[in-house]
Every structure is written in structure tokens, then in C-alpha cells.
């Protein structure tokens, strides 16, 4: 059984072993990361550790989703 086969609760308990940013570092990079994503640029390569943090931190993940959604809304306004 690998980590990918685990029940979601166990996955959240164990987390991943990739290097990741902390919440403050994630916040500092979030605007740049989302703009890179929306441009189709390799955001994960250019901002290493942010994606891994979003997987482990539901609060930062919500704010990432919201910023992305708001910018997408702006782009069609």
C-alpha cells in the first residue's frame, strides 16, 4: 500500500514528505503563483514547495482557490 492508496484521513494525518513552504511563505508567494498558473506558466517549478503546502494546509488552499477564482472573474468582467 502506498501513500496514494490511503484513505483521505490517513493521508491528511501522515502528510507528504516533499519539501514545502510554511503558511507565511505561501502567503508571500501566492499572488505570483496564481498569476503564473493563470498564464499557463510552470508555477510549481518556479515556486517550489507551494503546491505541497496547499495539499497539507486547507486554509491556505481555500485562499488559493479564492484568489484564482477572483482573478478569473476579473478577467471576464
Amino acid at each position, binding site marked *: *500500500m*502506498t*501513500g496514494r*492508496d*490511503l*484513505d483521505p*484521513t*490517513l493521508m*491528511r*494525518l*501522515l*502528510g507528504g*514528505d516533499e519539501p*514545502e513552504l*510554511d*503558511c*507565511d511563505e505561501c*502567503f*508571500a508567494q*501566492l*499572488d*505570483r503563483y*496564481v*498569476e503564473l498558473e493563470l498564464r499557463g506558466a510552470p508555477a510549481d517549478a518556479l515556486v517550489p514547495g507551494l503546491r505541497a503546502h496547499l495539499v*497539507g*494546509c*486547507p*486554509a491556505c488552499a*481555500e*485562499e488559493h482557490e*479564492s*484568489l484564482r*477564482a*477572483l*482573478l478569473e*472573474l*476579473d478577467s471576464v*468582467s
Partner: protein
Amino acid sequence: MAPPDTNPDVSAIAAAPALTEWHLDLQAEGARRDEAVAHLHGLLLRAARFEVFRRRNSLLQISAAELDDLAQQAADDAAVSVLRRLDDFRGESNFRTWAYKFALLEASVKVRRRAWRDREVTLEPEHWESLAHAGPGPDDDAENAALLEAVREGIRSALTPRQRQVLVATVLEGVPIDVLAERLGSNRNALYKVLHDARRRLREHVAAAGFPEATR
């Protein structure tokens, strides 16, 4: 409350043509600065309303006026943060994007705290003892049982009391990290570091117990 994306005033702000330069006036003086601050507040209010509206289903029995008040408070607090941290803006994104994230943070934290305002947060973790079946199917029951026991034992013996408290509250009880931070007199970043260290210790324990593949 009308959906934020249909508010003609804030939509006009988002579509304003001079968005790339107006923020420089935030460091000016007098009327130019006042105008820029008002513009900033309009953007932040747009973002805060957007976030509160997105998360409104987590808030039961809350009026439209209370929702808008949450958004107003978030925009006010975000404006203070943005103005205090103007020197942190390096131009690596659009200024509007940079400012938005402050409003989204303030609004999302306020919504989470409001949603948990009247809910008890259990700080005596015991729920991990009842970790249920957690595998893909019945064929794996024996392996799952052994893995679950390794996880339970890891939570019991490999973690500090603080690590156990934070891991169980955030992962098993679903307490938002901002809410837990408020109750513990801490902050999100500090608690996330505790959570991160707890997970690492738990992975090490589970790997040593014979399940190295479960931690990859």
C-alpha cells in the same frame, strides 16, 4: 446581499484602466493619497465580499447585513495590512492581485471564526482511538488494521502533547487552523509548523513499524 460579481460599483473598479500605476499614489500625500486609499478600499471590499459570498454556506443563520459587515471589517483590516506592508510589494504580480490576497485572507479567517464562534473545540484529543477502517477494500483488512494500529500507536507515543493536540484537532476534528490558533493564543504559521512536525514524526513512526510505503 447581491453577489459581489454583479455589483456595478466594484465591477467598475476592477475594470478601471489605470490599475497598473494608481497604487504609487498610496505613498503620496494629501488628496492624491486619499483618492488612492479609497480606490484600494474599493478593491479590497470587492475581494472580501467575493470571499464571504463564496463561503456563506458555512455560516448558518446569518443575515445578509451581518455577511456584509464581515466583508466590511475584512476590507478595513486588509487596508491596514496593505498600507503597512507596501514596501513588501516587489512587482512580481499585479498590485491588484497582491492586494486582493490580503482581503481574501482577512475575509476567510473571519468567516471560519464566525462559523465556529459558538462551537466547542475539544482540546483533549481522544478521537484518534476510534480511527475507523481506512483502506481501499476488504482484501486489505489485515494490512489496514496493522497500519491503523501503527498510526494510533504513533499518535499515542511518538508525538508531543502539543503535536497530538494540533494534529487531532485539525485533521480528525476538522477544526480550522485559524480557529484553533485563536483558541490556543497562537497563529496559523506557528500551528502549521507544529502540524508539519507532527506529521513527520508520525511518518517516521509508521515507517519504522513496517509501513515505509504508506508514507510516500
